[in-house]
């Protein structure tokens, strides 16, 4: 019940945008229509659309949850919400097919040497839906609103953004208290990067129901929990590479359908024309419907950086001993877990925070990551168990106690039971399994009162996103407690988001260093070193990358071939977030 099907999963629902830093190395050329490759994993199919485009028509899209709100500065936004927001709002910066951040509503974006001052020029021909013209002033007027918003204030704090000033009609200057090369990522994400009409935002509740942006679609009706409809923005600035005005569709509506089965059924029965999913099981069912039952649908699958798995709380014995973490990781068969998740042939096992499709992916890390090696794991664990100095204070030879906790999602429940059986098979682990609902689960992991330490042990969690690595990785490496922060001379730099409470000065410094340069090779090296340290110290573990998909009726085209203003192809549909401006119905 509830939309727990999606919510209790992990973090990616909450915030996950596509991002990659200015990358040199292009991602592997996307090719085959996703799905039935030999290896079986999801691949991302982004290619130039062949058919002639057509105007008109309406489509409805089944999404997995309602957007809590459509205020970029205020509402935390998950995948379904992004689908809607992107219809109304344009982002200042977007990501292209190669994973580079490129200007979108901006025409250009440059920084000074130490990345503390960023200067942006806006497009000139843009108006908001309410007729107000977009200007540099609009952007700087947005800033106080963003500072007051729940989502905006956090993002501003994370980016160390201190001021946004209109330094010309169309020129905006961003000043950061501490320079960061990944700042474009911030401008590509909703809380700061999505452009809304600041005057209209004064009425916060009203805005959520009737958002005003510059996007390809204009809000028409918003019936919470049921349907949100957008109609064509006739004044939209964007065009396709051939100069045709966008968007093609007359209208698009989004319908939250929390139940995975129903959502797929809704597509198969024509109740909706498109649907998204972040579940392997649903992708599997959709593939079956297409391949075996001849359903007339196209599946756009995407294998993102997002990787499922979990954390060991290294401040709690026995997880404070790396041998235990390493042993448990060796004993954990990702293949088996993926099968339990229904993702065999869909999801790839994880070895790092980046998927093999990502420019940040490192072969070296993949090699170094503790593979499934049951006997190896048992050997290490035996060593710990027989260590008279063992950290959990139990008698020599006694099994360790592990509390394994996931939100009560059937999929996660299945996977945790696989882990449990593997651990138990060693005879060295007593496993207790607990399920708390999402909020409790998060609350426990965050810790709150006791300095964000938490008294959790082994928790299901999800890591990473298609954003610039710094977005997710840096907060996760910051000191988890005030003492540690004090000790390294950075008092106050305590991160609640360091869920595993693992702190390594070298990794932390590498992460900080990676934000001080925009040289891809340097940054790649730094992140690789961090991932190698992960492979060595094992504060987290993986249970496979997250495959996502958007399924559409097969006459709906264009989802995989939208363009950034430069005419290049855009990133596609990461995390089941579609860009709908260039979608059309083939008649």
């Amino acid at each position, binding site marked *: 019940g509830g939309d*727990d099907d999606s919510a209790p999963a992990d973090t990616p629902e909450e915030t996950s945008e596509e991002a990659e830093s200015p990358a040199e190395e292009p991602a592997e050329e996307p090719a085959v229509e996703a799905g039935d490759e030999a290896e079986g994993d999801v691949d991302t199919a982004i290619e130039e659309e062949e058919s002639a485009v057509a105007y008109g028509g309406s489509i409805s899209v089944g999404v997995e949850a309602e957007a809590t709100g459509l205020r970029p500065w205020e509402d935390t936004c998950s995948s379904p919400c992004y689908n809607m927001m992107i219809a109304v709002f344009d982002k200042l910066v977007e990501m292209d097919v190669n994973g580079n951040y490129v200007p979108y509503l901006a025409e250009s974006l440059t920084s000074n040497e130490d990345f503390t001052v960023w200067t942006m020029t806006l497009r000139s021909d843009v108006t908001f839906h309410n007729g107000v013209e977009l200007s540099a002033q609009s952007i700087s007027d947005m800033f106080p609103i963003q500072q007051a918003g729940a989502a905006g204030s956090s993002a501003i704090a994370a980016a160390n953004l201190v001021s946004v000033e209109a330094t010309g009609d169309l020129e905006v200057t961003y000043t950061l208290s501490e320079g960061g090369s990944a700042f474009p990522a911030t401008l590509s994400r909703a809380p700061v990067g999505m452009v809304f009409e600041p005057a209209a935002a004064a009425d916060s509740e009203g805005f959520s129901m009737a958002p005003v942006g510059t996007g390809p679609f204009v809000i028409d009706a918003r019936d919470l929990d049921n349907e949100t409809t957008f109609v064509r923005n006739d004044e939209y600035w964007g065009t396709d590479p051939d100069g045709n005005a966008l968007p093609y569709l007359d209208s698009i509506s989004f319908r939250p359908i929390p139940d995975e*089965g129903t959502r797929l059924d809704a597509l198969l029965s024509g109740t909706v024309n498109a649907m998204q999913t972040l579940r392997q099981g649903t992708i599997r069912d959709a593939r079956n419907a297409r391949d075996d039952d001849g359903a007339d649908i196209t599946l756009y699958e995407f294998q993102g950086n997002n990787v499922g798995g979990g954390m060991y709380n290294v401040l709690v014995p026995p997880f404070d001993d790396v041998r235990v973490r390493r042993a448990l990781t060796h004993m954990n068969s990702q293949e088996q877990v993926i099968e339990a998740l229904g993702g065999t042939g869909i999801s790839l096992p994880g070895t790092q925070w980046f998927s093999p499709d990502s420019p940040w992916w490192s072969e070296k890390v993949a090699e170094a990551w503790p593979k499934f090696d049951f006997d190896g794991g048992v050997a290490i664990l035996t060593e710990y168990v027989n260590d008279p100095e063992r950290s959990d204070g139990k008698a020599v030879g006694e099994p360790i106690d592990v509390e394994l906790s996931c939100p009560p999602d*059937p999929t996660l429940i299945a996977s945790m039971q696989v882990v449990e059986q593997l651990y138990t098979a060693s005879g060295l682990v007593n496993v207790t*399994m*607990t*399920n708390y609902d999402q909020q409790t689960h998060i609350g426990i992991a965050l810790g709150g009162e006791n300095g964000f330490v938490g008294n959790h042990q082994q928790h299901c969690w999800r890591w990473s996103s298609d954003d610039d690595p710094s977005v997710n990785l840096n907060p996760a490496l910051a000191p988890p407690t005030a003492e540690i922060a004090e000790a390294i001379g950075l008092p106050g730099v305590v991160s609640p988001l360091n869920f595993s409470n693992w702190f390594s000065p070298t990794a932390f410094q590498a992460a900080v260093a990676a934000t001080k340069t925009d040289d891809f090779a340097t940054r790649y090296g730094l992140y690789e070193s961090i991932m190698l340290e992960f492979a060595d110290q094992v504060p987290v573990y993986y249970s496979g990358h997250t495959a996502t998909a958007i399924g559409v009726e097969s006459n709906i085209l264009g989802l995989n071939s939208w363009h950034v203003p430069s005419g290049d192809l855009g990133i596609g549909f990461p995390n089941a977030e579609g860009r709908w401006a260039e979608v059309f119905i083939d008649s």
Partner: protein
Amino acid sequence: MASLWLVLVVFGAIYAKLDTSWFGGALPLQDPNFQTNGFIRETGEFGTGQPIEGMSGAHWLGTDAIARDTFARIVHGGWVSLVVVVVSATCGIVIGGFLGSLVGFVRGRTETVVMATVDVILAFPALVLLLALVSIFEVRNLFVISAVIGVLSIPAYTRVARANSLAVSSREFVTAARAIGTKPRRILFREVIPNVLPTLLAYTMVAAAFVVVVEGSLSFLGLSVQLPTPTWGNMINQARRDIKINVAQVIWPSLALTLTVLSLNQVGDFFQQRREVRGSNL
């Protein structure tokens, strides 16, 4: 028929729970939590079982998403239903039955207060109450779940008991007991409650059916008994994800649930009918 099924379930549950070596282990019950495709320590290899499999000789009712024997899980799942039914019925009868009998007997302000409380609980959306109660407890073992469901079934029992107690209290043997100078407490325990009990027991059968379903719903919300304990509810919930691949995995536990509820109702009806002697006039 009905009682035969119940006996089977109860026996299965107890057998599964207590001692699978009865009859020299001749009964073919597998380990309900054993993943047949899981890692086998001895051989150092993975098992040959298949997840979400159909019926076969090895697995009479197939296997679930992690290749466990569905038949064994259903038999073991009966244990949870059994305990939940017993505990909640006990809660209901002991607390609800007592309160209802009491207020039906003494009437007056006590009755107003108790029945108002009952109304409040009934007016409260059950889901919120259930979620809140379940979340408050740190551990969610079988006992806690049963107790929570039990607490929630108290109002209904109270109502039934009160209605009956009202009727019993107006019977003449209660007045007779007063007339011989029996103290109210003794009247309550000796005269009223024994006469309210049979109806309450008949109601228990119907309520038990309901309780089995409630446990299923709790499992559906992921809030029932801690894993890996199988319950019919959590089996349905887990198999639901793969319903497009193998419907049977949803059907089997549903069927067990259905048959049990059906049987309980039938047994309840039987008890009820036994007390009814007159026939229809039509």
